[in-house]
């Protein structure tokens, strides 16, 4: 079997190929989902109904830290997949755990950020703007939370079963998911935070 040496393990079975392709299609749906959230945010952005607007509450420093945490976690999850392709189980574990810790750190920061906003008088019920803002951010945050739980479960399977055709394709898919969340965040950072603070 020549394919042994040329195809990464996660692509080996027909079923894993389909799983990966299916996940890409799902990511297409996720792009539509988030662009709907963005579209709504842009439409409602200025409807603050007397409540605070973006520039009143956003804090650049915190947001930048969140951004770098997430960028780094995307990088480390890439390293995890790299290790996986080198059949380095320990490497996968280490990089993935770092990824998860970064993810948790991001969530921690985000929750603090939300608490801060609430103290500033911006709850999800305050205005059209806050509703769209919290829902966009919250949907992203919920995705991150889901990702952390999901990848943790996959790591358990990895420990139990080692790097197999199945675990590798599952982990590969979860890394696609994680990178995707980073992409979404880049747009949030740019079009919610930077735009909100500049304009």
């Amino acid at each position, binding site marked *: 079997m020549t394919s042994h040496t040329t195809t990464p393990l996660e692509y080996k079975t027909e079923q894993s190929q389909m799983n990966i392709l299916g996940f890409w299609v799902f990511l297409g*749906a996720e792009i539509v*989902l988030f662009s709907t959230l963005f579209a*709504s945010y842009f439409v409602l952005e200025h409807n603050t109904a007397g409540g605070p607007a973006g520039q009143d509450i956003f804090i650049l420093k915190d947001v930048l830290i969140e951004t770098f945490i997430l960028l780094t976690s995307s990088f480390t999850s890439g390293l995890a997949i790299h290790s996986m392709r080198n059949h380095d189980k320990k490497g996968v574990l280490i990089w993935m755990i770092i990824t998860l810790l970064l993810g948790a750190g991001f969530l921690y920061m985000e929750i603090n950020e939300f608490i801060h906003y609430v103290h500033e008088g911006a709850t999800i*019920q*305050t*205005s059209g703007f806050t509703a769209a803002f919290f829902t966009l951010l919250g949907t992203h945050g919920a995705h991150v939370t889901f990702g952390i739980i999901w990848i943790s*479960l*996959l790591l358990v399977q990895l420990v139990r079963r080692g790097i197999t055709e199945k675990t590798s394709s599952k982990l590969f898919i979860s890394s696609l998911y994680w990178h995707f969340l980073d992409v979404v965040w880049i747009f949030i950072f740019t079009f919610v935070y930077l735009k909100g603070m500049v304009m």
Partner: protein
Amino acid sequence: MSLDEFFVTGDPLILASQIAIGLTMVGLIALITYLKRWKWLWNEWFTTVDHKKIGIMYILAGVLMFFRGGVDGLLMKAQTSRPGLDLLDAQHYDEIFTTHGVIMILFMAMPLLIGIMNVVIPLQIGARDVAFPKLNAFSFWIFFAGAMLFNLSFVIGGSPDAGWTSYFPLAGKEFTPGVGNNYYAISLQIAGIGTLATGINFVVTIIKMRAPGMSWMKLPIFVWTTFITSIIIVAAFPILTIALLYMTLDRLFGTHFFTVAAGGDPMLWLNLFWLWGHPEVYIVVLPAFGMFSEVIATFARKNLYGYKSMVYAVAGIAFLSMLVWVHHFYTMGNSAAVNSIFSLTTMMIAIPTGVKIFNWLFTLRKGRIEFSTSMLWALAFIPCFTIGGVTGVMLAMAAADYQYHNTMFLVAHFHYVLIPGVVFAVFAGLYYWWPKMFGFKLNEKIGKWHFWLFVIGFNMTFMPMFFVGLDGMSRRMYTYAESTGWGAWLGFSAVGSLVMAAGFAALCYNIYWSFRYASRNVGNDPWNARSLEWATASPAPHYNFAVVPEVENLDDFWYKKKKGTLGLKKSDLKPVHMPSNSWTPIVLAGAFGLVGFFLVFEWIPLAIIAAVGIVVGLVANTFDYDDGYHIPVDELEEEEREWRGDLQ
């Protein structure tokens, strides 16, 4: 919440239905228990991952929902059959057209089409199953959970009453404080997850699981339309997800996305709803176009004329379908530029659709047209849909639409596209693929009754609506004054709906009759058809094909049949890999349904507790390493020998 608020009470009509529903349920459970069928049901149906069985369950659910939606339709027709009638009060009428619209589109058209897709697509591409069989089962069960939750509103809590479009501000908590519209938001959300999963499933199935040699331009046209429909599903359903999420947050958690107060924008709902809603109507019509193409080619005994241009036309319709949503609210006070652009994009859809119509006509030309029941539906579709289509183009002209919008003219338009486009197609498909599902044909004679009653009734019901619409009658009016002069039109229309109902009854009788008496000896290819699904036994064996066929041509089966090169060699048989049954889909869907129910009543703590069920299901699922099983060669041989004479 007191008990009498919980149960819908009072009206004798509803009380009778409640009792009927209750008795039916009890009777059904008793019957199954008496026949000791629970285990069988669980093993053979509830936990199945077989695409054909899932398809059949979809179809069953769809037919049931058609009955429910149809009764709604009849009630509306009865109420407006004469001026000033009092069969239904305003509130009831409002609830009924809302549930009618939602049920017909989302719980009738969608499952029937997806059901037929499920049965046929893997067979047509020579696959063993879909790409993700377990996900497929989940899609069905979660759709079913959504549908049941929606129907529950009829007896518990109250039905939604803001139209199938649920426009805000009306659908907001201030104006519709009951739980009815919570049902709408949550049950559609739940069912929507299933549809999205189906879309992904079929995209991957069609990309990856085609039989060897079946390149893109050799795909049966129904596979093409399903593929493109699935792409539209993936593109459009996430928008609905978000719109419904906002609706849920507004209604349950006091946010202000669409509320007039505090900076919400009700027009955002319209925008998002139609960003999904318009593609949705093409989601239901494109697979139907595919079915008609199959049926027409088979019974004209010719190949499909202009196959390639048909494919491009479908792709063109799909692309344009994402660019026209504003035509549903031209009258919102958009700028003239917006209305002009969307008029143009909308009208452009007529062009690829016209291409399809002419290709169908030219497939028929120089053919030998056999008037089987299935073919009759496909034939009747062409003129009826043309009427619906050209009136659609009239609506597309924004300035003219200022006079048609939200009138009965519009109602006539969409029934003239939905019923010929979708319902006729489903009927054509059912008559056509019935033997593949069950191993016997539906009776042709009763079928003709079904056909003529339904088609004549359909035209009688909906043609008058064009005229009352032009006479200033708006939609959703539960009553009108005698002085309007609409009574005669609408009376005629009501009679038509009874004729239609008789047609539907004929279908039910046909199913009953054929189950009991129809010949079980139909062979694998009862219609002398063209595509691969007819190369295997009827009903199709659970492994579909003992040996996956190699394809060289479009309509490969047809040519091989002619050449007589279809046989199966014993030496080619290899064990077939099959997926195992799974309980996770139905349990997970049940948990979703339960969470949904608690959310409807805003019992958040209970919903959270039930959500644990979802988490458990998902965790169990990710730890599931079941690899399926193999069917041994002798079992294959035995089954194949049973139906084919050509096993060498």
